[in-house]
Structures are given as C-alpha cells and as structure tokens.
C-alpha cells in the first residue's frame, strides 16, 4: 500500500461556543479519491479550511510528504500543491476563462502580462479535462458546471497534487455530474489525490475509493468503498437508522391557486405554461440552465416578463417586486442561499424574521426581541438547525444548516403558495427527510408547493405532477408519476435538435 502523501493528526478547531473539530485524523494517498461524509455541521468544511490554511487549528498537526507543515495562510497550501474548489465558484464573472485561470500567477514578459500565452495554456488545460468552451468566454456566461471546470483548470495550472472538492455536484444535474466524475477519474489516474465532500451517495459510491465519516466534530472511521453500503454509511453518519425517507402521502388537490400562461421573457424562456393546485406538490425539473429559476423569478417579481399571464387565486397579477408576491401569498426560496437567501453576519433569529418583521413588533413599529425569539426558536426546533442558539450568526453555520435557515424564513412567512428552488441542496440525509416531511405536512394543510430540483429521486418521489423544462420551454408534463422512469424525464430534459 502506498504511503500517504498527506496525514492530518488529531486536528482540533474551536470557534467561539462551538467545537467544530475534535481530534480528527485523516490520511490521503496519491491517486485516490477519498470521500469525507457526515451530517450538516459535522465539521467537513472546517476540516478542509484547516488544510488549506483558511482557518488555524487549535491543536493537531498536518504532515505533508512525511514532514510537518504549518499552513499559516492559504498561499502556503497553494505553494504545496493543495487546491480547493468550492460550491460557489465563479470568482470573477466578468473576466474571461483564461483570466480566471491565471489570475494571481500570470505569465509575464517584463512588466507586462502575456495574455496570449495565458490563452494558449488555458486552452491546453481545458483540452486536458475535456472542456469544450473557449478560454475567451466570460465566466459569468458559463453554466455552473462549466464554471467548476474553470476552477479545476485553475487548480491544475497551479500544479495541484491534492485537489479538494467541497460539494462540487450540489448545483449540478445528473448529466453534468457525470462529466465532472469522468474528469475526476482521469485526474486520479494521473496521480492526483482528490478529497471529495458530498451528500450524494451517487457521488460517493460512483467515484470514491475510500470514505471517511465525521460525526459531530469527531472522526468515526475510514473504510474502503466496497466495505460499506449506503445503509451502513448512513448509520455511521447519523448514529441511528433512518426509516421512511420519503413520507407516505395521499394528495388531495384542491382549487387551482396558480396558473401561468404562455409566459415569455426574451432571451430566458418562452411560452411557459403550468398550473398549481392547493395541497399539491409539483416538481419542476430539467438541466441546470433550462430556465427554471428564471421563470419563478419572473413570476415572483424579482425580474419580470414580457408577455403571458400569471393568475394567482383567480386574479391576474404582474408583480413588480418580491414584496408584492409575498403580500399575494407566494413565498420563494431562492436558489443561492449565501447571495440571495441570507444575511450572513446576522443571527439566525434576525434572518428568519426578516420577511415578517412587521409581525414581530410592539405598536406596529418597534422591534420586539421577544416575539422574534419565540418565532425563530420554534423554527429552529422544527427544522433541527444545529447551532448553540438563535443568536448564532448565520454565516458561521455549516452549509446545510444555512439552507435550513432559509427554509425556516419561508415557513415563518406562512405563504399559501411556496416555491422552492433546490430546497435540499447541500442538506444531509437526515435533514432531507425532515424537509420532505415538512413539505408533506404543508401540502396536507393545503399549501401549494412548486419544487425546482435537479435531483431525480427527489423529484420522482415527492411530486404529484412533474413539469420538465429544456432550453426555456416546458417540454413535458407527467401526471402519472408512479409509473415514471428516470429515462423518460431525462429524455424530456435533453436539448432538442431544432426542426427549423
């Protein structure tokens, strides 16, 4: 067995009030893909940040190639060939691919940066990972998957021998994930060691060679991937067995509450029609970039639409601002929790009550801390948000727990129509089950739920009906979800050759 290139021994990291890592150990060999799994808040991301010098540990040591090393800052990690790709990648959306790859270590001729050389090298790197876009393209215009390829290329340009991917597929659809897998495999075969963090079992079992489990800041164990199966892994992660992953429910659809007719916005989507009834859970799926988010943003008044109709509870509406759609009883859970869903420096409590501040008042004007606490404590409990208390800053929570806070915001607002854009992105299985349970409960109370999701099992198991979008159109509506196969959905989601 090859000697490990990286060993991390008894790493401890303490944040004010939270022990994020408690004597955690880990080793990594060249040419392996090593998955780290665990519940939300188990300490995975913190562990990575210790390795990359973003956080300084309070105890333990890092041994690279047999020598102890102090990661005083992120540059040291980069110099030693350790590169990380995070979920929120796009560093400089207005700059070109080549510029993004080489920023910080540009080619120089004298005092000048040689972009010609950079473009050439960028092209080589992109070719080597099989990316088929130009180094001149601006990164903002690429899909999330492509942006991740740019990040990988950037890591390779820094001669990374250890590549860390923290939830790389969370925003990707199945097909895009596959592409990422094949890149990861080919890198591994070239001898790069890869650390993979993911809540998706497809990723772990499809890709990893070994797997390490963290639970509650502790190291639980490391296994070869063929030694474990899904239920065993879940058991290690959660500490107990999870039954009823998807809740049993008998839908009782009521009146139609939302109807969208031939909605169009030039350049984004065209002639989109669908409907939603009270007590129904409707899935809206498709590849990332199919225009799902754009449609719901248009109908909620975040953006707007050029033509078509939105009819809410029998009345035609053209919302100008999210405030209006909220007043109309529609809640939207935005896609990007960090940029659209949360005020990161703010406490959990203040985040949850922001949409309903008018209700947390005395004399309709003065903030009442008590009312806020009551509401947010209730939501924290219901969603099992892992934090010392509701005064904890949202930015210090783990990714999955941040997502729960955004969901809590929607619940507190008690809307009659709830639109969820990738509600379980980055959420661990225990909490996913809790979110599904909650959706079922809401639907039973007569709330209409529209769920945008790229995760096939979730879409197929939770939805009463499914709409599939591709390239800005609704291509298919499935009403008989019980007898549906993944293949049928994928076919509808694939871009069609236009018959002109």
């Amino acid at each position, binding site marked *: 067995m090859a000697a490990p290139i990286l060993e991390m021994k008894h790493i401890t990291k303490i944040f004010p009030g939270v022990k994020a890592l408690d004597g955690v150990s880990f080793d990594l060999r060249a040419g392996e893909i090593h998955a780290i799994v665990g519940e939300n808040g188990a300490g995975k991301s913190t562990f990575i940040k210790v390795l990359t010098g973003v956080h*300084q540990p309070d105890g333990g040591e890092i041994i690279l190639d047999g020598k102890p090393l102090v990661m005083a800052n992120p540059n040291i990690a980069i110099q030693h060939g350790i590169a990380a790709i995070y979920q929120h990648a796009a560093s400089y959306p207005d700059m070109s691919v080549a510029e993004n790859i080489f920023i910080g270590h540009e080619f120089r001729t004298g005092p000048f940066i040689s972009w010609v050389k950079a473009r050439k090298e960028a092209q080589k790197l992109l070719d080597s990972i099989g990316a088929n876009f130009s180094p001149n393209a601006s990164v903002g215009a690429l899909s999330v998957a492509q942006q991740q390829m740019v990040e990988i290329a950037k890591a390779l340009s820094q001669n990374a021998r250890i590549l860390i991917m923290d939830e790389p597929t969370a925003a990707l659809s199945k097909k895009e994930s596959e592409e990422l897998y094949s890149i990861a495999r080919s890198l591994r075969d070239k001898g790069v060691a890869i650390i993979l963090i993911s809540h998706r079992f497809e990723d772990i079992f499809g890709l990893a060679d070994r797997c390490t489990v963290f639970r509650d800041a502790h190291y639980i164990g490391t296994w070869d991937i063929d030694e474990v199966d899904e239920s065993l892994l879940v058991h290690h992660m959660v500490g107990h067995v999870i039954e009823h992953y998807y809740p049993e429910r008998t839908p009782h659809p009521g009146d139609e509450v939302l109807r969208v007719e031939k909605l169009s916005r030039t350049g984004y989507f065209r002639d989109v029609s669908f409907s939603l009834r009270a007590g129904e859970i409707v899935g809206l799926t498709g590849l990332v970039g199919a225009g799902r988010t754009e449609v719901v943003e248009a109908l909620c008044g975040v953006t707007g639409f050029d033509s078509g109709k939105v009819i809410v509870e029998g009345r035609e509406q053209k919302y100008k601002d999210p405030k209006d759609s909220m007043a109309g009883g529609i809640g939207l859970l935005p896609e990007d929790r960090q*940029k659209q869903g949360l*005020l*990161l420096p*703010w406490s959990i409590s203040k985040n949850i009550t922001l949409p309903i501040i008018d209700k947390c008042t005395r004399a309709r*004007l*003065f903030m009442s801390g008590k009312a806020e606490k009551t509401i947010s404590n209730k939501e924290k409990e219901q969603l099992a948000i892992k934090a010392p208390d509701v*005064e904890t800053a949202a930015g210090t929570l783990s990714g999955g727990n941040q997502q729960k806070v955004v969901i809590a*915001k929607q619940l507190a607002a008690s809307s009659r129509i709830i639109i969820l854009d990738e509600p379980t992105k980055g959420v661990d299985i225990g909490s996913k089950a809790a979110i599904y349970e909650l959706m079922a409960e809401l639907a039973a109370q007569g709330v209409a739920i529209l769920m945008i999701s790229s995760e096939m099992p979730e879409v197929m198991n939770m939805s009463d009906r499914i709409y599939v979008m591709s390239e800005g159109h609704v291509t298919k509506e499935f009403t008989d979800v019980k007898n549906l196969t993944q293949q049928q959905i994928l076919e509808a989601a694939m871009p069609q050759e236009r018959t002109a």
Partner: protein
Amino acid sequence: MKAKKALSRFLRWETMLIVLLVVLWLVFDAKDASLQAARIAKGRRATDIFNFTNMLNGMGPYLLYSFMALGMSLILGMGDIDISVGAIAALSASVMGTVYGPFKKAMSPGLALALALLCCVMTGAACGFLNGFLVTRFRELFPMIITLGTQLFYRGFCYLLLGGDTLQYKDDAAWAGLKKLYSGSVSIGGLSVPTMLIWFLLLALMFFVFLHLTTGGRRLFAIGTNRVTARYSGIRVDSFELCMFVICGVTAALSSMFYVGSVSATVRADAMTGYEMYAIAVAVLGGFSTGGGKGNIVGVVLSVIIFGVMKKGLGTVFGLPDSTVNLAVGLVLIASSVLPNLLEDLSNWRRVRRQHAEAKLS
C-alpha cells in the same frame, strides 16, 4: 449570560470611543493645568481655557456638520455614500436667502422667514431625492461618482442663484434671528447649554430610535448587509433607499440653517465647502463603515464630541494651526478604522506561532 454577550458586542466600539474621549480629555486638561502653572509662576493670572463649561459653550462650530453626520449614517448604513451634502447645504441656504427677499415684500417678516426656512428644507429634500433617484436607477454606477456629479451640479446652481455675492439682509430683525439659532443657549440647572446642542441631541435621539428600535432600522441594515437578500425578503429596496437619501438631504438643509446663523446671517455660494468630509469622518469614527450594515448612533454622538474636543484641545491648548489639527484628526480616523483588522491579524499570528512551536517540539 447571553444578554451579557449581546450587550458586550453592542458596547465594544462605543466603549473604545469613550476611552478615547477620556484619554484626550485628561491629556488636554493636564497640558492646560501645566500652562496655567507656568503662567502663575510668571506672576500672571491663570485663565483656565480647557474645561467643561468652555467646551460646552464652544461646541458650536463642531456641531455644524453633526446634523449631516446623522443623515450620512443612514446612507453609510446602507452601504452607500453621499458626498454632495456640503453642496446640498449650500444650495438650501442659497434658496432660503434668495426667496426671503420677495417673500418679505408680500408678508410679515416672521412668516417670510418661516416660509424661507421651509424652502430650505424642501431644497434639501429635493436634492436628496435626485441623489436617491440616480443611485437607485443606475445601480451600475457607484454612489460616490453619482454624488460627485450632483455635488458639482448643486454647487454650480448656488453660483447661478447668487453669483459671487454675499447675500445678507441688513437691519432685518427676523433674518437676524437666524444668528440666535446658532448662538442661543438655555440654562439647565445653572449650566448654559447651547440650543443647537439640544437640537442635535433631539435629532440624534430620533435617529437612534429609528435605526435601532424600529423595523425601518432593521430594513436599513438589511439593505446594507446584502441588498439582494433584502429584496428577496420583501423589502422594497429602491424606494426605501430613496427615502433615506431624502432624509440625508434634509439633514444637510438643517445644517445650513445653523451655518447661516454662524456667519452673521450671510449666504454665499461657496459656503460649507468640504463639510461632507467631516460628516463622513464623524460617522465613520462613530462606527459606520462604508461597507454598510453596521453602526450605532451612540457612536456618532460620541464621535461628534471627540472631534470637538480634539479640535478645541489641539487648537487652543496646544496652539496648533488648524491644518495641523486636521492632520491629527485624520490620523485618529485612520487608526480607528484599521484597529479591528490589526487585532484580528494579531490573534491569527499567535495561533501560527504556537503551531510552529509545536511542530518543532514533535
């Protein structure tokens, strides 16, 4: 325990300001005492120049920009900036002076002045509205650039109205009443307190209540922390921001009324040049950063006092020229804004050093 933690977080910056104020005070007082001792040694009469009563009565000049600083706090709290407030103040005063003449011919002087003051406030509001409109309408431009443009525009407007002249209404009792606005004082418990200070504290109290106790303040800081999230959370960001710019313009107009009083009730087109910088500096020292999302009015009030004490102390006790005083004030401002970062670096540096030590041991 939790309450304590919240309280300590709230007080940290303000406590530092209080400490700074006390230190400055003690230094100036000690220097003053030694000056007096020297005078007495030379057989001259001691004239205590730095003491509480003197400071209180001499606050006037340092309060002129304090109203603007309150308005500026709202703007900074949202992550914007408005560098046109000096020009807004000048334009408000110019309008006030220009309309007073014709008004007086049509009605009693008292009523004319009241109307002129109203016009002054309206001008401030209108200028603030234009700023707010441009800032919210053209998000791709920085507020700094937009208000630089409007600053030039408003200032140019002043010259259109007044040319290079100094406007003043000699022997006009009502107009001369403006001087009272600036220099008047009331006696509270035997202490004569400038009315202007009372106006300022009242306004500060209103701003405190708004910013820290009402939903409006919560919305404002939400916008400053993350505009996009604020909008998704049901805040009408654009119209709210516009309102705040209007309020900021009004505070500039208020400043200008007192300013007119301070320069023997005259109005000039180049009045209050550079006051926006004081307003920003006071708000920033008070704890509002240009990044938005944080700050406390208590800090702003403290920082108004600190600026006053520093200028007075350095100017009269140490006898430094005004330019040097500005230099010192600038240094304090820079030091105060880099201090939090330095503390953070220090704690990181300690951790790294500890790890190096451990690595050597093993």
